[in-house]
Each structure stands twice: as structure tokens, then as C-alpha cells.
């Protein structure tokens, strides 16, 4: 009944469009990343440069991936650290 009154005044229940848009947004994060394999490689290179300023890392062991859960996509970087520098210039 309240829903009916809501519609009468131009409101209305939430439709499936929101889900469509949210699911699309997430799936496109993946699609776009895999369409340009260069993107992840470039990201790795720059990560190495930045982190190397602060610590010595195992460059060959570095992994960067997209991790997907129900409602979000996360960028997961696994970076083995060899030593941390004592001071940064």
C-alpha cells in the first residue's frame, strides 16, 4: 500500500537498473585491464621504481593482479621485501 502511494507521488521502489550498472562497472574493470596487457606491466614497472626508493624488493617475485569479490574489484600486489632501507634521502 505504501509502495502504491509512493508511486502515486512519483517515487517508486528501486529497480534492477542499479544492479545492471554496478555489475557492468565491475566487469569492465576486468575487461579493460585484460584488453591492454601493457597496463599491468607498466604498473609493475612503476611500482618497482617507487617502492625501491624505500626498500629492496625481489623484483622477480612481484605479482600484481585484480581480485574480484561480490561487489568490488581490488588491485592486489604481492611484493616480497628483501631489506628495508634505514633512511631515505
Amino acid at each position: 500500500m505504501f509502495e502504491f502511494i509512493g508511486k502515486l507521488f512519483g517515487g517508486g521502489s528501486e529497480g534492477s537498473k542499479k544492479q545492471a550498472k554496478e555489475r557492468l562497472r565491475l566487469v569492465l574493470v576486468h575487461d579493460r585491464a585484460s584488453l591492454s596487457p601493457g597496463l599491468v606491466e607498466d604498473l609493475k614497472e612503476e611500482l618497482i621504481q617507487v617502492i625501491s626508493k624505500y626498500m629492496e624488493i625481489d623484483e622477480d617475485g612481484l605479482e600484481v593482479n585484480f581480485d574480484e569479490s561480490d561487489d568490488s574489484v581490488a588491485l592486489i600486489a604481492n611484493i616480497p621485501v628483501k631489506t628495508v632501507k634505514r633512511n631515505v634521502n
Partner: protein
Amino acid sequence: MGKVMVITSGKGGVGKTTTTANLGTGLAALGQKVCLVDTDIGLRNLDVVLGLENRIVYDLLDVLEGRCELRKALIRDKQYGERLVLIPAAQTREKDEVDPDQMLELVEQLKEEYDFVILDSPAGIEHGFKNAISGADMAILITTPEVSAVRDADRVVGLLESAGLHDPQVIINRLRPDMVRKGDMMDISDVDDILRIPILGVVPDDEHIIVSTNRGEPVVNDKKSKAGQAYRNIARRLLGEEIPFMDLQERNLMGWFRKVLS
């Protein structure tokens, strides 16, 4: 020198062929000389949408492989004659037989003669798609406001980009204003948010399309059809006119009742 547009989508069944037929007819109605090329080898359909299927003698492969003169393969439209011509796809052969260089050469030749050369691309992103986009100067993407169609369109934007077609525009096809109003379909702004490419037009879902395809007469000629109006608007935009998007919402009492009772 004419423009070469490719009509493409990634996903099948979203309205590439219908759009090609209607934009071609719409542009011819505005006085342009138009050549339509069906590049969907093995799945020819543009001929039936235009109602020209009985006139086909030669096809695209016959032209590309030199079995007939270009002039002989051009099928003149029932209404617009020389101003709107079709080169039909081959129906009997395999898709990957078209040579991209020959295709490019044909398109260059057609450009000399016609104001618009419109290439109807096959669905997918394989060989046939690559052939269709190889000669184009601009791309028009067709999508419907659905997750799968928009996703595929996004992928095609990337592929067009790497092929050097940098500024594609999108037509949102089969929009249902009633569903948009209920929040059950993505609207123009939602598709815009996601794809981030210019929207060339919005075509409402319309039963007239089915009737006109049954008859082989493009809906763009039907003054009563909303989809026809949308295609007429898009044709004018292609000629550089600024035409606002149609207001697709019902404003009458029936619309209000439907909204309340839905």
C-alpha cells in the same frame, strides 16, 4: 570525397543491420548519395531489410575477386534508385575469404562516387569485423541498454581504438521508456557514464520496426513511428545538424495511470 562509416556492435542481434538500412535510407532522403555494403559474409540480411532480395545477381565477393564489374553488383533501391545502392554479402562462402586489401581498395573506389559509404559489420570481433573496420574513417557502435550489449560495445571501443578509429559514437537502440521509468532499464545517462563516448542517438523499442522489416521497407520512411523519427534525427545529425534527443516519456494521462498501476 565521401565518408566511410562502419556500423558495429560486438554483440549480435542489437540492430546493426536495421540501423544500416535506416541511416542509409534516411541520408538518401536528405539528398545524399549513399552506398551500403553488407560485409556479413555467409549471413546476408541487409538485402531483406531493404526489400531488395529479389534483385541480387552479384555479391561482394564477386566484386572483390573480380568476377564482375563494380557497377553491375550495385543494387539500386526501390525508392531512391541511383542515390541509394547496396552491395550484398555473399551467402554461400566462408567468412574468412575476404581479402582486407581488396576491401580497402573497393571502399576507396566507392568513396569517390558516394557521399556516404556505410559498412554493415558482422557480429563478433573476428576476421569479418576486422575486414569491415579496415576501410572506415568513422565507427558507429550499436548497443541496447543491457549489460551484455554494453559490455561488448566497450570491448569494441578498445579494438577500434587499436585499429586507429579513435572517435566512435554510440546509438542506444531498443530503449523502453516504460522500463526506464520503473528503474528497470539503464537510461541514456547510465550508458553514457559507463561507455564515455558521444551518443549519436537513442532509438526507442518500436513494433513498427518488425512490421517494416516484414515488409522490407525501412521504418525511417514511416512518419508515425517513433523509431523512424529517431533514425531521421540521427541522419540529420550525421550531416552536422544539432537536433536534441527525442523526449520518450509519456506525458499523457494514460502514461500516468500506467505508472501508478505498474
